[in-house]
C-alpha cells in the first residue's frame, strides 16, 4: 500500500521536475541560426566545392588520378612551339593546353584527396556550399578557360603540327636516306626504303 502511494507520488514529482525543465527552456534564448540572413562561421579548412585556378594548372592529371570516385576528367593537348602558355605562379612552365577540365560535383565526395598531389596548388577547396541545382547536368562544372572554338583550334593546331612534323620528319628521313643513298652509291638500291618504314612504324 505504501509502495503504491509512493509510486504515485514519485510519478507526479518527476513529471513536475520535467515540466520545470521544459518551462525554463521556454525562456532560454534560442540557438537557431537564421540561415539565409545570418550565415554561420565556417571552420578553417572547411571542405566544400572545389575550385581550380586554371592560370596555374599545368594539366598534369595528378588530381584526376588521385580522385577516389573519378569525378575529375582532364584532357590535354600538347602545345605547338609557337604557342605562349605562360608560367604558373610558382615558376613552372606550362606545356599543355587543358582542353577539358570537368569536375562532376554530383559525384564528388569532397574528400580533398585531389588537393595535396597538385604540384602548383591550383586545385583547392573553397567555402562555397550553396550550389544546388534544378538539373543534374548543371552540377558538371567545366573549369577549362578556353572557349569551345579555341579548344577545337588547339586540337586542330596540334594535329596539323603533328602532321607537319611528321611530314617534316618524313622529308628529313627521306633526305637522310637520299643522302645516305648518295653516300653509298655503289651499294644496291634495295635498302633505301627501310629507314622510312621504321619512321612510320614509330609514329
Amino acid at each position, binding site marked *: 500500500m505504501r509502495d503504491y502511494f509512493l509510486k*504515485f507520488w514519485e510519478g*507526479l514529482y518527476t*513529471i513536475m521536475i*520535467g*515540466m520545470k*525543465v*521544459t*518551462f525554463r*527552456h*521556454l*525562456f*532560454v*534564448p*534560442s*540557438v*537557431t541560426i*537564421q540561415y539565409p540572413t545570418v550565415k554561420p562561421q565556417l571552420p578553417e579548412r572547411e571542405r566544400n566545392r572545389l575550385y581550380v585556378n586554371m592560370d596555374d594548372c599545368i594539366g598534369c592529371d595528378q588530381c584526376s588520378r588521385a580522385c577516389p570516385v573519378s569525378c575529375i576528367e582532364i584532357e590535354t593537348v600538347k602545345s605547338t612551339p609557337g604557342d605562349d602558355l605562360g608560367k604558373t605562379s610558382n615558376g613552372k612552365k606550362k606545356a599543355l593546353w587543358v582542353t577539358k577540365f570537368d569536375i562532376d560535383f554530383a559525384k564528388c565526395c569532397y574528400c580533398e584527396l585531389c588537393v595535396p598531389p597538385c604540384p602548383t596548388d591550383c586545385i583547392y577547396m573553397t567555402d562555397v556550399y550553396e550550389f544546388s541545382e534544378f538539373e543534374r547536368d548543371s552540377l558538371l562544372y567545366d573549369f577549362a578557360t578556353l572557349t569551345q572554338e579555341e579548344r577545337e583550334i588547339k586540337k586542330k593546331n596540334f594535329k596539323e603540327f603533328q602532321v607537319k612534323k611528321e611530314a617534316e620528319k618524313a622529308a628529313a628521313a627521306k633526305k637522310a636516306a637520299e643522302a645516305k643513298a648518295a653516300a653509298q652509291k655503289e651499294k644496291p638500291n634495295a635498302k633505301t626504303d627501310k629507314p622510312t618504314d621504321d619512321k612510320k612504324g614509330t609514329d
Partner: protein
Amino acid sequence: MIYEWLYNITGSSILSMFVVSLLPLFVFILPFALLAVLAERKVSAHMQDRLGPMRVGYHGILQTVADIIKLLQKEDLVPAATDKKLFNFAPLLVFAGSYAVFAAIPFSSIFIGSQIQLGIIYIVAVTGLVVAGILMAGWASNNKYSLLGAMRSAAQIISYEIPTLLIILTIIMITGTLSLYTLSELQTSYFWNWMILGGPATGLQKILYIPLMIIGCLVIYISTLAEVNRTPFDIPEAESELVSGYHTEYSGMKFAMFFLAEYANMFAVSAIVAIIFFGGYQSPFGYLGNAIGLHWLVPIEQFFWFTAKGLFFVFVQMWLRWTLPRFRVDQLMAFCWKYLIPISFVILLLAGLISLI
C-alpha cells in the same frame, strides 16, 4: 440567449437556430485551431530552443493559414483498396462528434449553444461518436496500421472514460447539478468559490474538500488528456510504431478535418476541466463591468476569462507533450485501471462522506 436575441431580430426560428449552431465553429473553433496549431509549433520550438515558423508573415503568424490553403488544394487521395463510403464519412463523424461537444459549453453567461440540464453527461456521451468515427476511419482505410491505431484509440478512450465519469459523478454529488451553466454560476464571483478550492461549501467541509478536489482535478485532467490522444497518451498515433495511426491513409482536406477535430477536442477537454474545477467563465477577481457600471461588458469579460482558462489548459497539454515520452500500451492500461480508477472511487466515497457533514 443569443438564439432569443436573433429570433427577435430575424423572426425566423430556423434561420436563428442555424446561425446559433454555426457560431461556435466560426467564432471559436476555426480561429482557435488556427491559433493553436501555430502556438503548438511555437511552444514546441521554444521549448527546444528553436524559433519555430519564422518566414510566413511576421514571426510566422500566417503559417497555419498557409497550411490550411495548401491542404485545401492538395490532391484528395482515396486509395483503391479502401471502403470508399466509410472512408469518406469517417472524418465527418469524428468532426461532428467533437463539434457536438461545443453545443453544451458555456462560453459566457449569454453565449451558450444549448442550456441542457445534462451538460456534462451529454459531453461524455457525444464523445462516443468520436470513437465510432475513429474506428470507422481505421477499418475503412484497409491498412494494418490504421486499424491497430483505431483499436488502440477506442480501447484507450473507453477505458479512460471511467475515471472521468467517476470524478464527474463526485462533482454532481457535491453540487447537485449536471448543467454546465448552473455549475459555472455556482462558482461565482471570486476564486475561492471555485470547485478546486472546495466550491460554494463553507467551514470544515470546504477545508476537507480541497485535497480531494485537487487530486480529482489531476485525475480528470490526466484522463481527459488520454481521451484526446495527446502525448504522453498518443499511442494510437505513435509515429515509431503505427505510421500515424488511424489517419495514415488520409490526405488533403479529410486529414485537415481530423486535425481540426483533434484541436477542437483539445479545447473541449480543457474547457471541461476549466468549467468543473476552475469556475468556468467566472472571473477570479470580480468584474470590471460591474465595478464601473457598464453591465454589457460583463459577458465579454466572461468570454475572455473562459478562453483564458481554456487556453491555459491547452498550453499545459502542449507543455506536457514536449516534456514526457510516450506510454507503452500495457503501462497505459495499467495506469488507468490500477491507479486512476481506484483513486477516483476513493474520492467519490470520501466526497460522499464529507457531504454528509
